[in-house]
């Protein structure tokens, strides 16, 4: 494996080149995801190990700053440069076997940051509990939310509390909310799909709520710090419809 540090403009801190044609942007984005995958496999496992080791010395699992993480670009401070990002990668798979068998890497996405820490199972469970308590009742992992997500049509018609009729929603609004949700899910699936790839324990917590709400609230932030933008519907979190 190469010893070189791979620097990934994972959140696109360099402003996307807006002169690029739509098609070019589309290709770039595709490439960047594939690139991440490729880069991950080229990462230096020693480097990863050191990061994980420093992360796992965290007393407080919720202290994101201590663990290795990529800061999201705050409104006021866009000029922060990104540290190089050896991210979650398949190579990490080999690491647990070198550590004690009870711990596994835990990947957490929060508010635009990605953190990896190696924790034993009980710690992981208490982290889950904390997150669940800290967020609203409706938090689900992306996986289960995908699996358990009926189409809104069905949602409309499924009997809710105590066999009562669920409150029906107006058609036009229903369509709008569906489009918006699809758009955000497609985006999240792309991210999560790649990051979860080959990870033994990676949880996208309800804190993805923070992240993806961030996405919806300030999507153009994402365009600056996130992946290069394009006009294709699945990446344009702004407008789910191809114009």
């Amino acid at each position: 494996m190469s010893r070189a540090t791979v620097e990934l403009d994972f959140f696109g801190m360099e402003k996307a080149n807006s002169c690029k044609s739509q098609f070019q942007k589309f290709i770039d984005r595709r490439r960047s995801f594939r690139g991440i995958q490729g880069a991950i496999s080229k990462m230096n496992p020693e480097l990863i190990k050191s990061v994980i080791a420093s992360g796992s010395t965290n007393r407080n699992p919720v202290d994101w700053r201590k663990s290795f993480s990529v800061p999201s670009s705050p409104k006021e401070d866009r000029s922060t440069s990104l540290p190089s990002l050896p991210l979650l990668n398949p190579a990490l798979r080999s690491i647990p076997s070198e550590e004690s068998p009870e711990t596994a890497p835990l990947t957490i996405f929060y508010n635009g940051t990605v953190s990896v820490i190696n924790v034993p199972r009980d710690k992981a469970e208490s982290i889950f509990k904390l997150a669940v308590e800290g967020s609203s009742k409706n938090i689900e992992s992306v996986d289960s939310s995908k699996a358990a997500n009926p189409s809104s049509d069905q949602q409309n018609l499924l009997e809710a509390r105590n066999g009562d009729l669920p409150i029906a929603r107006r058609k036009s609004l229903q369509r709008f909310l569906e489009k918006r949700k699809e758009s955000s899910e497609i985006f999240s699936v792309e991210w999560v799909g790649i990051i979860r790839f080959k990870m033994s324990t990676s949880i996208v917590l309800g804190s993805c709520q923070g992240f993806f709400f961030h996405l919806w609230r300030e999507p153009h932030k994402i365009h600056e710090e996130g992946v290069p933008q394009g006009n294709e519907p699945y990446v344009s979190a702004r407008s789910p419809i191809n114009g």
Partner: protein
Amino acid sequence: MEENGNKLHKTMTSQPGMSDVVLGCVMPYIDDPKDRDAVSLVCRRWYELDALTRKHITIALCYTTSPDRLRRRFRHLESLKLKGKPRAAMFNLIPEDWGGYVTPWVNEIAENFNCLKAVHFRRMIVKDSDLEVLARSRGKVLQVLKLDKCSGFSTDGLLHVGRLCRQLRTLFLEESSIIEKDGQWLHELAVNNSVLTNLNFYMTDLVKVSFEDLEFIAQNCRNLASVKISDCEILDLVGFFHAASVLEEFCGGSFNEQPERYTAVSFPPRLCRLGLTYMGKNEMPIVFPFASLLKKLDLLYALLDTEDHCLLIQRCPNLEVLETRNVIGDRGLEVLARSCKRLKRLRIERGADEQEMEDEEGVVSQRGLMALAQGCLELEYLAVYVSDITNASLQYIGTYSKNLCDFRLVLLDREERITDLPLDDGVCDLLRGCEKLRRFALYLRPGGLTDVGLGYIGQYSSKVRWMLLGYVGESDAGLLEFSKGCPSLQKLEMRGCCFSERALAASVMQLTSLRYLWVQGYRASESGHDLLAMARPFWNIELIPRIVGEDPVIEHPAHILAYYSLAGPRTDFPESVIPLDPSAAGISS
């Protein structure tokens, strides 16, 4: 009064010509349908004069009469509005093939209604062939065509409209389900029309329209005042906005580019009604320069959070109409109450249920309602989905919102515990305070309103003509008490009732003005026979039976639809609708 009546009678019998002249001068000034209704009942002569001079008719349910009857009475009609499917169709609760076909009406219009200039079909099934017949027969004179939440046609049908209806001032397609083949129809409209003032294909998902045709229309139609479109990139519309110099209303569009690029967009100078779909926090500032001119703002399909709402609303002191989702939150309502003293209409729809899709602050409760009532004294229409409610907030509305004509409240079911239920006293005070109320909707949950509260509704809703009641009352007794009142109630919709068929039938017989009833979710009897207690002449009863789907497993409870009709039972039932025939010995389920 009687003396006058006698005098008039004498005048009419002795000098019929003179009274006709007088009447002929006065009649055209009488527009209100209720007044016209009264006029037509005075005597035969007045009935005939009304029939000759009536300009507009609204038929609230197309099956209550027939095209033939309409023609026989109002041959010189200039404007017709027809409604088909029950209102519940807007909420996906009615089978698509339920009915409401325009074909027989279009055929009658084509042959006999020579003065007809305006046609409005709402929630009906329209075919391409219907559009062709209409365009060919009336294209030269048709000025207004509204296909409002209709379905069954494609852009091919619209081609005929574009080509042949050259006098069209208004083309309205909002929320219709249209099969899109291409964007040629808009091109035809652009090429053939120079008098268009209102163009609306908002919420139609038509994407193959070209912005160049829009620009073309703006250039040709110098009186273009209102344009509502689907998702066309706003940056492509710069030319359109430049050409549409008298535009007052614009809705639609989308924002796919960097927000900075939108600062280059300049809007027409008279624009005062706006709804930019998919507008987010970063694009919002493009509205600021003319926000103080805005009278109407549609944020239903925008991507704003609570804070964004506050920032925008406080810049719109002249706002009269606001539509948005509950992401506005109580805080947004407080800002609205402080800033928009001229507000007349407010609609707050239900946003996404998933926490992560909407702002955490995006809930509306008694806090927002109380601020609103005190701040916006000119409110005439209020429709709101709340997450929490109290009696006090309804009392505030009764105290302050003296101009309220239309009030609709839905209590969302996300919170287990509601601060203050039942709402008996609040509802009572609201109804007593809002003396102008004509339309009323209350959608709660079990325990939301007792039988006593339901009785109050009956007692204090003297002018209310339409009601939607969801999950109200506790027992049949409540419904029966309710139905002793409501003297003006013409149309009643109920959902999630605990009432039996027997009680429903009995209450129908007691409601003196009732001409239309829709119920979904009630205590059905085994045979359905109990409903027959309301069987009577001219009263059609139809059932949409309970449907249990297999995949996915869903259940639609049965619907009852009952209405007065001069045309007898329908003859075009689909399989999903079953008429209840009182003369039949047994009812098949």
